[in-house]
């Protein structure tokens, strides 16, 4: 993906980062859906941080006397088959989705950036690394994560790690293709000619110019990581049952769909809303940072 629109203003100046954010801010203002996405995402992050103070009770406290109550003033979303307060569980569940989404986006893009930058520049590594990436990419990401998690104990860290591994090849591909066009730019040639060492060229001249597309990609990775985490938790290969996550809340209520459908509805709505908000934010950012792509999609 070559994007002259991004490469030009960002060139090699200390203001590169500032330009990126200014460009982003300017266009986002014209995208009400992206703003809405950002607001909802921010709300979810706040819910995740302040879950204990949002009128919740202990999401794990079991009370068989009040099993499967419908929503009421006391239990806003009702109670589940063990009498646990579903509202509390859903609020605490935000922690898992937000953590996994952001952590995978961070770990996945940083790893992908590092590998992509180096392979784009070092010819002999390129062939080997890209074959490995092609191989990893041909394993459907849910299966890849399942296979990795089945080896270890289910824990939040392992879930993040497994999903991130599935996402890395996509970032590597993107970064590598950017680097391949960037390295032909005159200012990179000039840097090489003036004897700048490779690590410095990568960090000072190449890295800043990959930021815009990578940032957009990171947003989409965040959304897809949230979905993958929910899928893994739902089929019993993700977040352990003692940490409520939207996926495992739905898994536990699976058999009750005919008598207590709301148990499945609330976590499902929260999950979809959060992923939607991240996607809207991503679309807005893509439009802001890559006008050429925006026209097409």
């Amino acid at each position, binding site marked *: 993906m070559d994007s002259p629109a991004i490469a030009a203003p960002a060139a090699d100046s200390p203001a590169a980062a500032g330009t990126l954010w200014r460009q982003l801010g300017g266009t986002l203002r014209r995208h009400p859906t992206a703003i809405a996405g950002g607001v909802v995402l921010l709300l979810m992050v706040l819910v995740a941080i302040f879950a204990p103070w949002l009128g919740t009770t202990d999401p794990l406290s079991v009370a068989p006397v009040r099993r499967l109550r419908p929503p009421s003033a006391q239990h806003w979303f009702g109670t589940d088959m063990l009498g646990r307060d579903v509202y509390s569980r859903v609020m605490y569940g935000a922690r898992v989705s937000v953590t996994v989404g952001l952590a995978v986006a961070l770990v996945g893009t940083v790893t992908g950036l590092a590998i992509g930058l180096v392979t784009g520049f070092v010819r002999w590594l390129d062939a080997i690394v890209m074959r490995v990436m092609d191989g990893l990419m*041909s394993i*459907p990401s849910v299966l890849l994560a399942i*296979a990795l998690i089945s080896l270890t104990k289910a824990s939040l860290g392992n879930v993040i790690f497994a999903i991130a591994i599935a996402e890395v090849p996509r970032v590597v591909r993107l970064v590598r293709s950017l680097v391949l066009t960037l390295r032909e730019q005159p200012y990179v040639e000039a840097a090489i000619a003036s004897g700048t060492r490779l690590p410095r060229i990568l960090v000072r001249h190449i890295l800043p110019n990959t930021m815009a597309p990578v940032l957009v990609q990171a947003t989409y990775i965040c959304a897809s990581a949230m979905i993958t985490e929910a899928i893994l938790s739902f089929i019993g290969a993700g977040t352990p049952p003692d940490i409520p996550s939207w996926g495992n809340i739905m898994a536990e209520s699976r058999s009750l769909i005919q008598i207590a459908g709301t148990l499945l509805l609330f976590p499902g709505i929260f999950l979809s809303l959060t992923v939607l908000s991240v996607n809207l934010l991503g679309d807005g950012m893509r439009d802001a940072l890559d006008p050429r792509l925006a026209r097409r999609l």
Partner: protein
Amino acid sequence: MLRYALRRLAATIPVMGVVALFVFSLLYLSPGDPAAVIAGDIATEEDIARIRASLGLDQPYFVRFGTWLWALLQGDLGTSIFTGLPVSTLIGQRVEPTLALTLCTLIVAIALAVPLGVLAAARAGGWIDRGVMAVAVLGFSVPVFVLAYALVLLFAVQLEWLPVQGYSSITKGFGPFISHMILPSVALGITYMALIARITRASMLDVLAQDYVRTAHAKGLAPGAVLTGHALKNAAIPIVTIIGIGIALLIGGVVVTETVFAIPGIGRLTVDAILRRDYPIIQGVTLLFSAIYVLVNLLVDLSYSLFDPRIRY
């Protein structure tokens, strides 16, 4: 063409090699000692060592990889720990429901996505366009099992039009087969449809801006004929490409959809295997699905010359 096909087929070998190495490494690293399991509770250390040697488990990594790969090439995917049956047999028993679900989903998704994408592009900026784009964003955001349960709650629990779950083989009649397939294939197909519709629209917008489309309109060709005859055919390559790439999405979705609807397919086999830590099954399924993904994309590559005769090999 044949030479090109063979060359492309050869190019998939390193990719599948990486997949095989990855899957084997998982098997190699998987906890638990198969020799100890086979030997039983009263076996001595020597018994276990003897069994380990007879299974070749005491060999170094690459020797074991070679043995495993050789067996794999002869169709041996290993033996399930839990049932003691060959993995290939277990997968074989589950192929039909998964194949049925995947084909129904493909039909539903492509039959809806392509016309919607074409319409959206033809009326760019209009309400159909906005609607299609909104559905596309939603389709990316609602996880397959959330949509599945929403559909079940509405159409199966509330309205009682369709069964809540289960599978009925097509050999037992077409009516029950379809009624069991509608909800799973719609739930599974939405994300895929969103993806295809979005690319169809984008690709059509590119083609519709071309001169020959204006010429076709100018010579008085019916708008429908211009869209399908001239534009869609030339917009086809990105569409078939995304159909191929999207298969990965579909495969992940199959695992979940079969769980939601209690369909006894390969996905359900995988989920049961996770709960029982039956590693050979997980690895066999991973290998199989990856191979299918690679092959489908190879076919997509080869199909390009059908859509664009200028592409010769």
